[in-house]
């Protein structure tokens, strides 16, 4: 199904950036977990290989075909989310995992791909300058159903990670001032109500200590403070790979997952932070600039939503390590340990490649 032209048009640079970032991540995962049981870097490497294969296989399916069937994918994802809510194994306090033979997969991550395809389908025939009410409400509803199911697991981080997809769709579709204000008001109201009724105490504390981390350095402010100490004590050149005292001495929590960037800051210093940010920026830039390489509206939407999704997660995670954002449990895409997240991001980039390689095809 892939002819030679299409093969030639695969964006190998994008794949290269993707793999490069993942390999950097594996190196940092090694530094932050080599003393722990359970060989995380090797597992992550295996996940990368699996994800790469999935990425290539996914290319064989024309994105237009995928978009056509997107509603079915979406419904299947919702069904799985609902099922694990009822029957799910309890892992790490949340019901978000399905156990496969060797790996465990979080269906909530894969749901993001289904959502991107479905929203692209919804907006593909839409040509007005700003989004009308009906489409706006419908798309928001389509996003909030899985967000709600994921939040119930409860996995607030992943649920939060879904929202940038909707944000991306809205930005492209265009928002008039009224819509923008309505969204802002809705965000504030939902935030306030959620803070009061739905957030668990530990989540509420996370938000409170964002504002006053020194108030309670050994309570919930501990994570933020330790992460900041790790980053700050790295200085210009860092303490050296495998030599970060914060990370190596266990003062830093969730080192190989949510707080992996603090390990970068501590061990590789500001230089390392800049280098990794540049590497990441190149990847994001290439994603954003790919919107010009789409032959149709669906493609633009797909590429843009993927770019916004990965960018938002990156910013939320990195700002969290220096205490500018509450600890939300959002991993750093590609760098943090975690197979489901890696696979999802690879599949998302696969969609971008899919759009780009088929840009000259006449149907």
């Amino acid at each position, binding site marked *: 199904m892939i002819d030679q032209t299409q093969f030639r048009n695969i964006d190998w640079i994008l794949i290269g950036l993707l793999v490069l970032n993942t390999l950097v991540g594996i190196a940092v995962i090694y530094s932050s977990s080599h003393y722990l049981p359970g060989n995380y870097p090797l597992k992550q490497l295996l996940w990368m290989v699996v994800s790469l294969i999935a990425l290539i296989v996914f290319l064989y399916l024309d994105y237009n075909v995928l978009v056509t069937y997107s509603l079915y994918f979406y419904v299947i994802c919702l069904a799985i989310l609902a099922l694990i809510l009822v029957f799910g194994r309890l892992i790490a306090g949340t019901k978000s995992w399905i156990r496969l033979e060797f790996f465990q997969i979080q269906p909530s991550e894969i749901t993001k791909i289904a959502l991107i395809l479905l929203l692209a389908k919804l907006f593909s025939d839409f040509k007005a300058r700003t989004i009308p009410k009906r489409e706006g409400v419908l798309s928001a509803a389509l996003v909030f159903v899985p967000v709600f199911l994921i939040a119930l697991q409860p996995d607030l981080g992943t649920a939060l990670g879904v929202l940038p997809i909707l944000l991306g769709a809205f930005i492209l579709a265009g928002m008039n001032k009224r819509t923008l204000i309505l969204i802002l008001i809705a965000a504030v109201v939902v935030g306030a109500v959620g803070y009061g009724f739905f957030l668990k105490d530990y989540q509420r504390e996370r938000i409170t200590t964002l504002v006053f981390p020194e108030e309670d350095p050994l309570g919930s402010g501990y994570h933020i403070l330790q992460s900041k100490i790790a980053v700050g004590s790295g200085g*210009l050149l860092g303490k050296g790979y495998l030599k970060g005292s914060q990370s190596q001495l266990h003062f830093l929590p969730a080192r190989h997952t949510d707080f992996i960037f603090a390990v970068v800051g501590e061990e590789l210093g500001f230089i390392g932070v800049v280098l990794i940010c540049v590497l990441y920026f190149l990847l994001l830039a290439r994603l954003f600039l790919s919107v010009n390489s789409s032959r149709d509206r669906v493609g633009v939407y797909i590429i843009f939503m993927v770019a916004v999704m990965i960018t938002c997660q990156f910013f939320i995670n*990195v700002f969290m390590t220096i205490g500018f954002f509450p600890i939300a449990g959002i991993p750093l895409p590609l760098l943090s340990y975690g197979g489901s997240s890696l696979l999802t991001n690879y599949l998302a980039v696969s969609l971008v490649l899919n759009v780009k390689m088929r840009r000259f095809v006449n149907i």
Partner: protein
Amino acid sequence: MKNNKIYEDLSLIQMRAQVTFAIVVGVFVFLLLSFWKIQILDYQKFWKKSEANRIRQIALPPQRGLITDRNGKILVKNIASFKASIIRENCKDYDEAYERVARLLNLQPDVVKERVDKYKSAPLFQPIVVMDDLTHEEVARIEARKHELPELIIQLEPKRNYPFGAFASHVFGYLQEISPAEMEMEQYQNRRLGDLVGKTGVEKQYEHLLVGTEGQSLQIVDSMGREIEEISRTDAIRGQDIMLALDFDLQKKAEEILENREGAVVVMKPKTGEILAMASFPNFDPNKFINRFSPEEWIDLMNSPEFPLENRTIRGLYSPGSIFKPTMALAGLDLNVVNNHTMFNCRGGLIVYGQPRACWRSEGHGPVNITSAIEHSCNIYFYELGKRIHIDDISRYARMLGFGYKTHVDIPGEKVGLVPDPEWKRRVRNEPWYPGETISVAIGQGPLLVTPLQVAVHTALIANKGRKVTPRLLKADSGIPMSLPEENGKENRPRLSIPTSAFETVIQGMWRAVNVKGTARAAKVSQFDVCGKTGSAQVVSSEAAKKLAQQKREIKTHSWFTGFAPRDNPEIVVTLIVEYGGGGGATAAPSAGELFDLYRKKYD
């Protein structure tokens, strides 16, 4: 239609995407500036904090000072003990960790959780003791699973040990975990949560000397919080040893005398005030309190009706009975109400202020002077004195002679007792003083209340013919300054103005009481000039006594003896009370004799 899609105008959404990308570029710049601020500008601040994190300060607990008797025999020491602690930082999952630790130590998970929650505010790397006094089997069991349980550590700590169990338990007091309230106090400012501190007795009074100086070990720790390398070490300094005035043999004898009889014994040197023995029964085994985890047992003892934790020598309040008679005699002589030749005739009874009063010897003593009144403890003589001396004078002399004030012994918790006077009665009971009450006070009954230690100090004062002495548990020449309980302010006691001759008269009576045919003759010791006075203090009011008698129940009085020896150049004072022991001559005096005899054999 489909073909048209290729040529549709996408410029608007592509433009929007590019604007978004421009914003992303801006956020990237902001991100790098933020890291610049934290990593370059605030580098010093965070570097210092991270160094403090990596180097861990471990406190090395000091051993407490030893406590010995006056001859250097070790009475309180330290033994090695193992304690198990949880380091929360190393727990992967708290509940799971509590469960595993609980299973290993045969505890309830709730107990472990409760314990950890108590110290919730402590830093995560600080070990929280979940079990102490581990057996060797338990230590072996934990060591074998060391690598599966990084959150559980075993530490060696010196543990207080009282090798003779309940021996002198009221003198030593006991240790318990420092309370949050004590943590706030200045004197405990260097102590940590979980430390054991003296709660009563010498352990509390000399805590500042016994505690020693904490050592410190600066360690680089590994990823599991385990020590990799020690950077520096300041060893703990053992607390100062304390030599008490106690004599092991006398203390042991005193406790044997009280065995299974509630009461108190004080043996004291009248010249220096050194306490050779201080016994109170029932007693307790302080070893049982050191454990951090058996408060039930302690609460049981606290609530026991026999008050085993109470040191009766300083906290037991008793009616003095006839041992108050020397006080009356000294008052009478000093006020010139009577002299050595004044005689009263005892017919076994007397009507005073319209009320019949009896002598303990119903057939009477016949004519008695002041010496024989003390020798035979004749009530009639002292009723006559009570008619002639005003209650204000009686209370003044009682205070002068050691009652109604703290003795300022160097252990906390001492009680004042009660020397009644009309003003007290008006204030407390809002009633006037009746003359009949003065008559009761004259033979040591009525509202008068004294502690056994006050009686001992009072006796020393008579033995010294008027020289006051402060009792002390710390040996006099040990070179350590005596420390007084905080609650003891210095009061202005009435100055002693009684002539030596009056004391000599009273001493003559006390000598005859033991050595001629007196009430205390059971305390007589060959080749040792013992002088003494017995007392049989009524425990219940006369109405209650009648009721008890009607029910044909035996009424027993508290049995007192107080005395000293030898008559000239006195070396030892013995004061003894046996609760419900009956007559002082029958119960207390022979026991006192044993103590005098032991002292003479050991030191003469």
